[in-house]
């Protein structure tokens, strides 16, 4: 039970920080909407549904990257990593708390972005939304751990996209596939598998990312 | 040489060149190491003659 409490405490801290500082959410929202507008002009007329779906996923991945780059900023600015590492809670709770907070931010953004996409480009069916939901889990699980790695490096956020994008390729494949494929079941299953596998490896290895 | 043979030669040539590159890099490291060992040997001799 304590584990869940720790995760909740840490996640609530991040939500409170964001409500107070209000620097990540507005930036992510404006970013995804302006990206859609740019896509509109970049997308030649009549290029079909597959292209539109692909652009949705490009926008989602890079918006998530924007949020992930800021995810450990409070810890880094206050030098709080040592404080969390010293706390008696399990180190993976630090990761899970942060991942949960990032998930809340991502979903908050998508609640606006997906309807906007349907308005601007193509309507989204149930499978597409399910694909986005499943991919969110993978993005937050892997992204949060990689962001912690990036926080420990000299180049800070610069290296996060390099670390994250190769690992995000399977998510994009699963997401786009679930939207445009006649039988999306395989793609949704693949996304669920990705989430399970990478959640476990993140949960097990996060301790080694924050401790020496 | 037919186009097929050209590509065959190109492929094995690329393998050979990359391995050669690797050997060159290792050779450069060896010469650097050799120079550093020389410096250290020199310093050790000075210390031994000194005290």
């Amino acid at each position: 039970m304590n584990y869940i409490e720790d995760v909740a405490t840490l996640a609530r801290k991040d939500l409170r920080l964001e409500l107070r500082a209000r620097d990540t959410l507005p930036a992510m929202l404006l970013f995804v909407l302006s990206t859609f507008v740019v896509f509109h002009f970049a997308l030649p007329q009549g290029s079909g549904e597959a292209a539109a779906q692909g652009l949705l996923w490009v926008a989602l991945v890079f918006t998530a990257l924007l949020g992930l780059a800021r995810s450990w900023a409070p810890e880094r600015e206050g030098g709080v990593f040592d404080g969390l590492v010293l706390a008696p809670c399990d180190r993976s709770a630090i990761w899970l708390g942060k991942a949960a907070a990032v998930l809340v931010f991502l979903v908050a953004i998508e609640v606006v972005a997906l309807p906007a996409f349907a308005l601007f480009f193509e309507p989204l069916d149930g499978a597409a939304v399910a694909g986005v939901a499943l991919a969110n889990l993978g993005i937050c699980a892997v992204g949060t751990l990689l962001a912690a790695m990036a926080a420990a490096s000299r180049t800070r956020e610069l290296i996060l996209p390099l670390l994250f994008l190769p690992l995000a390729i399977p998510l994009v494949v699963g997401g786009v596939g679930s939207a445009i494929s006649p039988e999306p079941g395989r793609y949704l299953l693949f996304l669920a598998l990705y989430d399970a596998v990478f959640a476990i490896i993140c949960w097990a290895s996060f301790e080694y990312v924050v401790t020496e | 040489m037919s186009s097929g043979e050209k590509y065959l030669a190109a492929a094995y040539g690329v393998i050979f060149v990359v391995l050669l590159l690797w050997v060159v890099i290792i050779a450069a490291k060896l010469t650097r190491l050799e120079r550093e060992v020389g410096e250290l040997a020199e310093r050790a001799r000075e210390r031994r003659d000194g005290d």
Partner: protein
Amino acid sequence: MIRARGLEKRYGRKRVLRGVDLDLAPGGFLVVTGPNGSGKTTLLRLCAGLALPSGGALEIVPDRARVGFLGHEGLLYRDLTALENLDLFGRLYRVPERRERIGMLLGRFGLWDARNERVAAFSRGMAQRLALCRAFLHDPDLLVLDEPFTALDGEGAALLDRELASLAGDRTFLVATHDPHRLAPLTSGRLALGAS
């Protein structure tokens, strides 16, 4: 409480600590001195369990829940208020009667009036006092304090003296400082680190 033999710490090319021996019995008060760059901070981080030694032996008896640490950085969230910071760590350390203890500590360090202000608005001295509250929050058995008097004004330093005096004897201290005379009455042992 802490036993170190031939302790060594290297960060790649740089060797920061070499051949450090240290004994800190329960209730002891060990003062570590040495010029800048002599590895005081690294030694304290090792003894707090924040880093692993590269060589030698190090035994730390209390587990991390019973260790209080004060580092150069405040280990505080700048956008949270004093109360929120202490409440967060109070929950993580499962401090009994958390609210009362936070209130008492804030009062003892003269921060009660600023309890709802964000740490970002704090002066360095007030942030240092709050960091001290955080280190003492869970009433740890072992306190590892890295130059606790930095940035404290007269009043703050006096408050810290009183706090250290009241706990010395039944709590164990490992304190790095540039001004050992101030702690002379409480000191049970000294360790001087040379510029390695």
